[in-house]
């Protein structure tokens, strides 16, 4: 598809309107402390049920892109990152704001984010069709190893405790076993409930894990952030100064955006890991590393560019292999599957319009973010004054109606409650949620391909390495497992030795 054809789809009033509305929605939710980009997408999903696949993908892309940027707003003004992706440089952005430059800081971050997002989508548009060509010849062996490799990467980057990361993954996989199995069509762990025969519905599951768990945490913490006295500079001088600052650091933006896209493509890594790594790299190569953490704009530029580039990067494994790069693309895969589309190499030939609309939407969302993100920055102090007592109850009710709207049954509300409590328990236990999400999404794919390969080989595990590509992917997976084992061993014995 040529560029003109892609643009003609995304400037269609229906798609353009969706992108505009969703960038506004993403900017608002992302700016609110405690409401993450993933939560924004989870709450959006019931609405995408009533859209066609192209419009639904555009809505998800636009919401995420802006929500990740908008996380910087509460970070800069309240020192509470709106999304975890802004945590890496929150100290710098907050201190810069305290010097009387909140808008300049946020506009600098906005320019870096837009540029990072555009670089990310350029890499995405170039790399994914090439990778899709490579993956066309995959059999169940390769598909199994690829999904397992994706899950293993999620465990690797999940958190500091390897056993906890693994536990999170196995919990997700356990949830995915609920429903009729692929081998003989027997219902598993359904407790006689017909509604569970098709498995745990993905949308209530995501709403429970991301929205309800956050609401429960908010209810327990019971805190309302206060802006206090904040000196805000005039809008136009802030834009001018921010543009000047951004132009000085364009090399940082290119470096961090490229790195952020690659990190975003790693399953389970996502925008927050990308921002942390970009911040660390930026500090390493900076002429003034001592200023980091004390209000240095360089860290804000690098982190902001990287996290928005990672949003696009996460779609690479999702589109090519059907393996989500982060929680948001996990939800997106679920939405596309519900609409009868299976992400994977074939989507590039069967649903070319959808794939290229995703690229076009990313580009358009980033361009529109200049406008909507700028608007939210200008109104930030008013937005952050919306009381918790208004926002949280509305989100609670929206979550429940959203789940109910998809299934038309109260079973969805029970699933939201069960998985919300499960996620709260996991947070309390110090487990990351990302491996569990990937486990829920990929559980069926892993099991289907595993069972097909097991039946083909009649239980001979060496057959899993018989084909060349399968052998490479299998070896890579075993290497990741070995690295995980080493890390766990190092963490256990290394810490014990150092403590003596």
């Amino acid at each position, binding site marked *: 598809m040529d560029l003109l054809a892609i643009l003609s789809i995304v400037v269609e009033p229906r798609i353009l309107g969706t992108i505009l509305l969703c960038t506004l929605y993403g900017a608002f939710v992302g700016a609110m402390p405690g409401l993450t980009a993933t939560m924004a997408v989870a709450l959006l999903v019931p*609405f995408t049920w*009533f859209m066609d696949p192209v419009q639904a993908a555009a809505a998800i892309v636009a919401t995420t892109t802006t929500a990740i940027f908008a996380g910087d707003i509460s970070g800069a003004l309240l020192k509470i990152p709106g999304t975890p992706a802004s945590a890496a440089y929150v100290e710098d952005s907050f201190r810069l704001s305290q010097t009387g430059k909140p808008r300049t800081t946020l506009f600098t971050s906005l320019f870096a984010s837009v540029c990072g997002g555009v670089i990310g989508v350029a890499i995405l548009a170039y790399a994914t069709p090439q990778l899709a060509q490579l993956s066309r010849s995959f059999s169940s062996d390769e598909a199994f190893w690829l999904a397992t490799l994706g899950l293993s990467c999620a465990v690797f980057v999940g958190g500091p*405790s390897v*056993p*906890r990361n*693994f*536990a999170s*993954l*196995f*919990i997700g*996989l*356990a949830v995915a*076993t609920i429903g009729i*199995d692929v*081998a*003989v069509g*027997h219902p*598993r*762990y359904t407790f006689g409930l017909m509604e569970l025969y098709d498995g745990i519905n993905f949308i209530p599951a995501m709403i429970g894990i991301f929205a*309800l768990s956050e*609401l*429960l945490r*908010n*209810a*327990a913490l*019971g805190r*309302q952030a206060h802006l206090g006295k904040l000196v805000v500079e005039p809008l136009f001088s802030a834009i001018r100064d921010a543009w000047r600052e951004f132009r000085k650091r364009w090399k940082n933006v290119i470096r961090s955006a490229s790195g952020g896209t690659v990190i975003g493509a790693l399953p389970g890594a996502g925008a927050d890991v990308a921002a942390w790594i970009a911040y660390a790299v930026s500090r390493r190569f900076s002429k003034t590393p001592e200023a980091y953490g004390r209000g240095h704009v360089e860290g804000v530029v690098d982190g902001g560019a990287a996290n928005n580039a990672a949003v696009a990067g996460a779609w690479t494994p999702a589109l090519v292999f059907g393996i989500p790069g982060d929680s948001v693309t996990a939800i997106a895969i679920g939405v596309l599957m519900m609409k009868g589309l299976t992400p994977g190499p074939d989507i590039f030939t069967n649903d070319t319009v959808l794939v290229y609309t995703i690229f076009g939407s990313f580009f358009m969302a980033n361009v529109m973010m200049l406008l909507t993100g700028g608007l939210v920055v200008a109104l930030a102090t008013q937005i952050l004054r919306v*009381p*918790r*007592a*208004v926002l*949280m*109850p*509305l989100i*609670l*009710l*929206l979550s*429940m*109606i959203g789940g*109910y*709207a998809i299934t*038309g049954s*109260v079973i969805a*509300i029970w699933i939201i*409650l069960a998985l*919300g409590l499960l996620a*709260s*328990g996991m947070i*309390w*236990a*110090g487990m990351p949620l990302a491996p569990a999400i990937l486990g829920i999404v990929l559980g069926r794919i892993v099991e289907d391909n595993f*069972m097909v390969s*097991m*039946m083909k080989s009649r*239980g001979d595990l060496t057959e899993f390495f018989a084909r060349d590509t399968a052998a490479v992917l299998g070896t890579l997976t075993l290497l990741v497992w070995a690295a995980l084992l080493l890390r766990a061993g190092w*963490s*256990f014995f290394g*810490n*014990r030795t150092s*403590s003596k």
Partner: protein
Amino acid sequence: MTLRRDFVVGAVLIALAIAMIWGAQGFPRIRAMPYGPDLFPKIIAGGLIVSALGIILEGIRDIRSDRIDDSAGRDRITMLAALSFMGIVALVAGFALLLPVLGFHVAAALVLLCAVRIFGGNWVLAGIMALSAPVVLHYIFYSLMRVVLPWGVLAPYAW
């Protein structure tokens, strides 16, 4: 992470794994196939047990090296926090139970009335929210998106 928390987490995971294995015993097999629907759940259960043992070992290591994590103290749950948490859980369960009986408007109004109070709003705000938000949300979901929301006790006045 304190030893106690690590032990609780480990024990819960092992219990979950045992329940999965126990449940998988009843899954049927077809003679022609060497592997049945129980294979994958058993592998997952095995993974859960190994992870649980790893978490318990981490806890023992922390105690041996006198590493006491102060995060346990920081997020110690107060009575009010626990009540708020349980309140939201009760609201979700209550909504699931009451929605088919009372209908969307009444159930949603009750949820909002209580939720606003839990999140620190006063009765006036709770009343305004309870009266206005269900009507707006009903219009969006029922009238615009054609979601069949139950009318319940308001069925005689349905439009």
